[in-house]
């Protein structure tokens, strides 16, 4: 049951200062996420997906800047808030689960302390008061030996357990928006499925708005309600999962689907990989037109002139002058 819009990103453009130049990693990306739905942001390395997420919560590295755009949360523009106000939101109303749970924990602190930490920060609880709540959350996330995990150090636990603990940490203050950055990339396949269903359960149970970032379209299509495909820092296609997986229109999306095993394509379809390499942000800046051109087999004259606008059907949009026909 999809509820109200929790977060709306509008025309977000983010640049990094590198080697004396400003390179745009994200260009004019817009999307919404509502409570009760999972929006997946999918793209290759360098497509700008992680940057989008970190820009939303204002955790860009020192050399990154938001050039333009608006990120609405609760009717407020997150980009215009003071540092203090933003800090109050982080961990409490908006939770971010970083990549690679194994390194995201502090190696010299027990897991229990770290899971309870948001409570200590935001609710002013002492470690002792917060511990039982942390334990409860851990149990909720499917961890069985809660006592052991609470007292353990990160290197004593497996990747899957750490990811569950990380999600528990994110959920401990019951945020309304949950952002997960590549939650399954560092895990093996069986654990991946478990974590994905956990994410789904949590989302349903708390009626959360979830943003899921991944490079793996097939993985996210198992749980996502809507998918945003990024290429070269721009939105290539956005729509409901079913549309994206069965009726995608953008050549890049099609290419992604064809290059991975998925049950939604015809069993006779061949596995073909996308030719070429992900775009260099420097080049994308310099050359007008669609960044996918070098790898696209459907290129027409307009593609070199300007970046195609996002258009399509209600709820399903794509940025292509010559989209793939519906197969």
């Amino acid at each position: 049951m999809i509820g109200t819009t929790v977060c709306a990103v509008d025309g977000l453009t983010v640049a990094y200062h590198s080697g004396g130049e400003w390179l745009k990693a994200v260009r004019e990306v817009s999307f919404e996420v509502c409570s009760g739905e999972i929006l997946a942001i999918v793209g290759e390395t360098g497509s700008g997906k992680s940057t989008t997420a970190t820009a939303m919560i204002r955790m860009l590295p020192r050399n990154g800047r938001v050039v333009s755009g608006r990120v609405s949360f609760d009717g407020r523009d997150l980009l215009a808030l003071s540092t203090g106000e933003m800090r109050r939101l982080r961990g409490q109303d908006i939770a971010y689960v970083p990549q690679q749970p194994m390194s995201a924990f502090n190696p010299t602190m027990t897991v229990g302390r770290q899971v309870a930490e948001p409570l200590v920060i935001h609710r002013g609880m002492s470690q002792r008061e917060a511990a039982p709540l942390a334990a409860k959350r851990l149990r909720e996330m499917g961890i069985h030996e809660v006592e052991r995990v609470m007292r353990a150090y990160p290197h004593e636990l497996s990747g899957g357990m750490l990811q569950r603990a990380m999600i528990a940490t994110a959920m401990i203050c019951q945020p309304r928006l949950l952002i997960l950055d590549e939650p399954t990339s560092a895990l093996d396949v069986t654990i991946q499925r478990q974590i994905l269903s956990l994410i789904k359960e949590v989302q349903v149970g708390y009626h959360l708005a979830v943003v899921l970032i991944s490079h793996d379209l097939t993985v996210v299509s198992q749980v996502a309600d809507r998918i945003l495909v990024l290429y070269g820092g721009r939105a290539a296609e956005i729509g409901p999962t079913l549309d994206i997986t069965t009726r995608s229109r953008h050549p890049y999306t099609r290419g992604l689907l064809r290059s991975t095993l998925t049950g939604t394509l015809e069993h006779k379809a061949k596995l073909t990989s996308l030719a070429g390499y992900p775009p260099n942000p420097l080049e994308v800046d310099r050359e007008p037109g669609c960044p996918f051109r070098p790898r696209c087999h459907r290129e027409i004259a307009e593609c070199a002139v300007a970046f195609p606008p996002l258009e399509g059907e209600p709820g399903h949009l794509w940025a292509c002058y010559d989209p793939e026909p519906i197969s």
Partner: protein
Amino acid sequence: MIYYLLRRLVGAVAVLFGVVTGTFVLSHVVPSCPACAVAGVRAGPAQIAAAAHSLGLDRPVWEQYVTYISGLARGDFGISYASRQEIGPAILTYLPATLELVVYSFIVYAVLGVGLGLVWAWRGNRPESWIIRLFSMLGTALPVFWFAMVLQLWLGSTLGWFPITGRLDMDPPPTITGFYTIDALAAGNLDAFGNAVWHLALPVTALVMWLFAVATRLTQKSVVEEMQMPYVRTAIAKGAGTRRVLLGHVLRNAINPVITMLGLQFGWLLGGTVLVEVVFSWPGIGTYMFNALQTFDFPAIMAVTVVITLGFVIVNLIVDLIYPVVDPRIRLT
């Protein structure tokens, strides 16, 4: 873990042993005549021989060595050439003054060094960092004895803000620890306490100024490295503020090399203390050693060397023991 501690203990004993043996060897290499010194200027050959006998100098060398070692173990450091008194008790009277100076200097320097290092690491390229950098460079380049004298002259004499010499201007409080500050507080004597602190100010400043740079630089480097670690992002994502990130997370991980360095620098501190004590006429073992140097009172010099080494070894042993407490990663290896 026990294995780790045992190895450290053995190492400490080895160092002590090496030093003691070294001082023994040195004292027998010295082309002087200890018997002559003890017997006195006007002594004839017979008296000198008698003195030599009483000092045990006519025994075989290895026997002297054993006597020396067992004497040390008992706390018997021998007789001073200059005063003809036993050295052990003499050192004991001078020791508290040095300990007080050393302990306070160490605390101030550790806190200041680490604190400034943190500020420098956090403030990156802002002016505060440049000031810290400048001061630490200056600090390391100072000859500590000269700086002590400069403080004495300008802050003590010219401006009159601090006393120039000594530990106290009044009768000392009843001795409990030998630390005037603590004893004064224990006796409820706030005047004495204030006065003792006032006297400590300049010597401690001289020592700290000279030492803090290394701790600062190392803390800064260590903290900057730790701040690149992923868990820092996690903490920020939880809404942690600067203080929590630095003090609650980064510091406990970054502190390791700093603790080692603090232990090693203790050796510098001890050396510097000798110099500073001389400048301020501070009645500690540094002054005692200096006086011994003037009179070539060799046993006294060697005794102080052994005592200082002992202190150094103990401090480093404590540092080794602290490690596992601070860093759980070491506990488990």
